[in-house]
């Protein structure tokens, strides 16, 4: 699951990735014509809307990609850098940048690009931008108030507007297409050229269709978690015979022996878990299955994950989902926590079974019913799954 940094690609290799991405970024910007200020400001005077076309298409492509990758479980959106929202700072900064844009004819990225192919005006723009940082840095105590005011957190636009992501994204795609059509009309008017007859190019139509399908799919198609949950609820599909079971007696014995390979994954509700939990067990929820860190915990080599739930049916479902997510070293507690409590923890019910089980089992259970509560006290469980990975740091 993405992002690949820092687990699959280390932090040092990431600098090489940065260089390669930069090369591609620079090539595309230059090929698009962003290395000339005349083309860039054309956007503001109506004679050349290349910037809008490139910018909007790029933004939409990446947006659709991020939505789709996240929907199909390939990218953990919680680990992605979401530019934080500081309302006033974003507005004031943006307006100052707009002023800089019409005066200077570049933005920082395009000026670097233009300077690289020899545009002298762009080199001076870069010089000016170094000075801009210097003034901000020196006057920082003065600006800090505005800089940090009205902090909304890492909010996303559809949350702010209170609509679903798919609907917002669909609107964006439609607005983009409309604006492409509209700016072409303006261009012809400003440049006094004759509009060509409109043609539906198959490339544009198919790309737009793909984009729309991808942004709408989260609305109609269940995502990975939903479809897995549906499958798990379908009793016929449960691989009852393929999943290992561990009896309460065996589990009790291994807990008493201090078996290090045990990893108890407790799916009961939080309240029940806080009331009583087996030593060193980890509280887990269904949602954790779709988080990078939690999955990592389940994938630790040499550990036997024992799924604990209230009853066995629930355990089978969770085991099925874990299995489908590629976690193989998994067993379930036979009969769930209810059975464990009955046969190991509850002295009364142990007495009742005295004549039903053989004597060794009875003796063992009696002993265990004394030891396990002590172990529980000694090793308070490690609690909820710890989130180790942080959001990537980004921005400028």
């Amino acid at each position, binding site marked *: 699951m993405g992002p690949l940094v820092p687990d699959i690609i280390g932090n040092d290799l990431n600098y090489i990735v940065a260089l390669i991405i930069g090369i591609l970024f620079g090539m595309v910007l230059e090929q698009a014509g962003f290395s000339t200020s005349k083309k860039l400001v054309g956007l503001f*005077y109506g004679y050349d809307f290349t910037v809008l076309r490139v910018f909007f298409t790029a933004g939409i492509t990446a947006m659709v990609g991020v939505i789709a990758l996240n929907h199909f479980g390939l990218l953990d959106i919680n680990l992605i850098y979401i530019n934080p929202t500081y309302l006033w700072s974003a507005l004031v900064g943006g*307006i100052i940048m707009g002023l800089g844009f019409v005066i200077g004819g570049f933005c920082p990225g395009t000026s670097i690009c233009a300077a690289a192919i020899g545009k002298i005006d762009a080199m001076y723009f870069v010089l000016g931008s170094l*000075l801009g940082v210097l003034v901000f840095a020196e006057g920082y105590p003065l600006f800090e108030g505005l800089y940090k005011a009205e902090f909304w957190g890492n909010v996303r636009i559809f949350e702010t507007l209170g609509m679903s992501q798919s609907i917002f994204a669909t609107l964006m795609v439609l607005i983009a297409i409309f604006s492409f059509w509209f700016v072409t009309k303006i261009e012809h008017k400003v440049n006094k050229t004759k509009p060509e007859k409109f043609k539906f190019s198959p490339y544009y139509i198919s790309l737009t269709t793909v984009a729309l399908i991808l942004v709408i799919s989260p609305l109609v198609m269940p995502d990975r978690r939903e479809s897995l949950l549906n499958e798990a609820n379908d009793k016929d599909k449960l691989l009852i015979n393929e999943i290992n079971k561990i009896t309460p007696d065996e589990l009790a014995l291994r807990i008493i022996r201090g078996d290090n390979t045990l990893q108890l994954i407790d799916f009961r509700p939080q309240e029940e878990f806080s009331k009583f939990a087996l030593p060193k067990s980890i509280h887990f929820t269904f949602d954790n299955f779709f988080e990078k860190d939690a999955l990592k915990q389940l994938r630790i080599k040499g550990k036997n994950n024992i799924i604990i739930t209230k009853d066995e049916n629930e355990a089978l479902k969770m085991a099925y989902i874990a299995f489908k997510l590629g976690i193989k070293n998994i067993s379930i507690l036979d009969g769930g926590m209810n059975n464990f409590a009955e046969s190991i923890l509850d002295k009364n019910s142990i007495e009742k079974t005295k004549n039903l089980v053989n004597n060794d089992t009875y003796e063992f259970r009696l002993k265990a019913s004394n030891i396990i509560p002590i172990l529980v006290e000694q090793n308070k469980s490690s609690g909820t799954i710890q989130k180790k990975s942080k959001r990537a740091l980004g921005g400028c």
Partner: protein
Amino acid sequence: MEENKYMNPYLAGFLLGLVLLATIYITGRGLGASGAVKSTTIAIVNSIAPEHTHSEKFYQEYLTEHEDNPLKNWLVFEVVGVIIGAFISGLISNRLSFKIEHGPKITNRLRIATAIIGGFLFSFGAQFGRGCTSGAALSGMAVLSTGGIITMFAIFGGAYAFAYFFRKLWL
């Protein structure tokens, strides 16, 4: 030799979008440019006046985040790549040449002055916006960040609002 034509804008946009998507998928962050300008400025100030950078709050905050080496920054590497990439592209398309571009009604000297002022304002604003057209607007749009999209509208809205007053520079 004749300069080659620019790429179809939709194709260029699509490719740029794929580069951005790959960046997000691989690194968890977006593209940027003004961040590298910031790192460079801080590195310069740090080498000229290290006592100064260790007393002022802005530099302090930045240097603690970057283990005292402001150039060891993802965006600095990325921007070095941008320079290489743009150069290669210019080479391929016969666009490498030293020149000053400006509107028909202004002199080279005025163009240089406006470039410096524009660069100054843009990067000063980018500090408030926590990124520029790439880092805040484009990358922000890709992840649908509220702040990024507000900055995007402010940049383009601001530019349109001021465009009329500076038309003599370009038209």
